[in-house]
């Protein structure tokens, strides 16, 4: 490219603080990897797969399955909610309403997770607003259990990760020139046909990016399953913490953490590979 934002050398120089900030994280990752291969539970001692072998239990297997399932379902729900929201946000002409909606969507990112979780408990808990109103109206006799189970966790995951999906999709929608849509229209495509044939394919990279962020965020969730799952929904984040805090099984926690990282990476790489496969197959066709 003849036009560069910054010459490579200067860009590297300016990026140096970021590299320095990333280093401790990379160091921590390496440390976890090393600890997961330790022969002892509390210290790094020797080289062994014992920690991984100890995880091969039905309990841990269920936790892995639950984590992937909840993260996947939450991602699907979030995407279904986020795409129309992104279109509404880009179509608003009034800058007041656009800002209002933007702030409403952004709010979960600004508010502390703890506050949000307690908000849900106040609203949907056994003696929360919803249950007391329904009881007062005589619609139910015993409270609905919406929280402290998988439904509650799913609700929390969807709500906290929605903004992570909306804004990348908004960017992708804005990047589509209206002339593409008009071109499809002039060739005879109605609204739905244009959406299916032109908008969605052009949005695809943005959608995959947004879904990846949401999936990774939800797979590693900790506060939401802790607060809204009531210890009954054992996602991997919780399992890892329990190994550390009451059990002091550092090597086991490290091994579980490595498995979580590898699984998440695998899902992300596989999904983007799948998308690329389906699109290039179409182009060479």
């Amino acid at each position, binding site marked *: 490219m003849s036009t560069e934002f910054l010459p490579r050398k200067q860009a590297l120089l300016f990026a140096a603080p970021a590299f320095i900030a990333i280093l401790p994280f990379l160091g921590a990752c390496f440390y976890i990897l090393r600890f997961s291969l330790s022969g002892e539970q509390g210290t790094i001692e020797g080289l062994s797969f014992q920690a991984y072998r100890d995880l091969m239990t039905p309990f841990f297997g269920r936790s892995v399955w639950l984590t992937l399932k909840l993260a996947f379902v939450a991602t699907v729900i979030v995407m279904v909610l986020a795409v129309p929201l992104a279109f509404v946000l880009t179509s608003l002409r009034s800058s007041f309403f656009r800002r209002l909606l933007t702030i409403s969507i952004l709010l979960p990112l600004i508010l502390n997770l703890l506050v949000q979780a307690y908000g849900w408990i106040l609203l949907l808990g056994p003696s929360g607003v919803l249950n007391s109103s329904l009881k007062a109206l005589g619609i139910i006799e015993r409270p609905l259990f919406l929280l402290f189970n998988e439904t509650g966790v799913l609700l929390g995951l969807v709500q906290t990760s929605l903004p992570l999906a909306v804004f990348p999709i908004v960017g992708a929608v804005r990047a589509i020139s209206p002339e593409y849509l008009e071109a499809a*229209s002039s060739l005879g495509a109605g609204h739905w046909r244009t959406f299916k044939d032109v908008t969605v394919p052009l949005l695809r990279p943005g959608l995959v990016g947004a879904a990846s962020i949401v999936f990774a965020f939800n797979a590693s969730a900790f506060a939401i399953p802790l607060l809204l799952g009531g210890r009954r929904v054992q996602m991997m984040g919780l399992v890892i913490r329990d190994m550390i805090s009451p059990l002091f099984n550092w090597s086991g926690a490290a091994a579980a953490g490595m498995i979580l990282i590898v699984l998440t990476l695998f899902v992300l790489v596989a999904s983007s590979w799948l998308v690329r496969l389906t699109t290039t197959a179409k182009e060479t066709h």
Partner: protein
Amino acid sequence: MTNTHLNIEAVSKSFGPVTALNQIDLKIERGSFVCLLGPSGCGKTTLLRIIAGFEKPTAGRLLLDGTDISEVPPHKRGFGMVFQSLALFPHMSVAENIAYGLKLRKTTAKEQRERVEELLNVVELPHIADRTVSALSGGQRQRVAIARALAIKPKLFLLDEPLSALDAKLRDNMQIELRRLQQKFGVTTVLVTHDQTEAMMLADELVVLDHGKVQQAATPTQVYRQPANSLVADFIGAANLVKAEVDQNGQLALFGNTFKVAADHEPGTAVSVAVRAENISLRPAQANGGSAGRVVFARDLGAFKEWLVSVKDQEIRVRSSASDASEYQVGDLVHLSADPARLSIFPFTGSEDAAN
């Protein structure tokens, strides 16, 4: 009998308080090539978008073969359009782009393939069907966009400044090619441009738009020779607008020469005279008095020479053919004389000074 294909009746368009189009009446003949020409902001693109159906007129209606299509959505009009950005779908191959409109029309794969092949031959790009759009050059994209719009056998062929992104030589070639294609298919065509050379080269009928109104709709020659008003005269060609006065004898004094003018100009009224740069000739003057002017700018453009001559407080543009041996340098004193047969005289409105 006239053969009107598209009849635009009293179409107006406002965007909030801004009037983009004001009572446009226009009849477009079947098979003709119409150019909408005007400065930026004149409403030409809005008019094309109304024809295409992307904008709804605030008032007025469109009749296609006598049927009111004002309420028909763009995807049901069956008009082929070439956009300024071309808008070729980046996720489809060249063949898929061209076949897209056919696919929507429930044609068989075989018919689509044949039509794509036919059109790629017509635009002289027979071997690029399987390429992606990003692999094409600017001129190739242009042709693919034209092929895509023509593939659906459009009732009207609409083009929104499609050649403006091309370099001069390529644009010249594409203009000739576009005109040939249009004649080959016999399709009624409306092209929007701000480039008057392009418009004069392509159009059967030239529609000059300005301030949201049709200023003149006529053949290119008529528009050039007999501009309807000073706006048209100013916009088309290198015209000079000079303020002058019709004297008591009904005579007009211009550059020290006097002419008899038509009786419809009252003696004593101010007029503005449009005179094209190539209809003025120069001869050397001895003293800086009366009608003489001073050359303030001179250039040789190969095909012709051009000078700016300062007369009173106005600069007059003068052109001579390359075969003309006359040489005037900056600072020379000259007399000007205009060809009386090639003058256009309009009532003076006061806007002429701003135009110059």
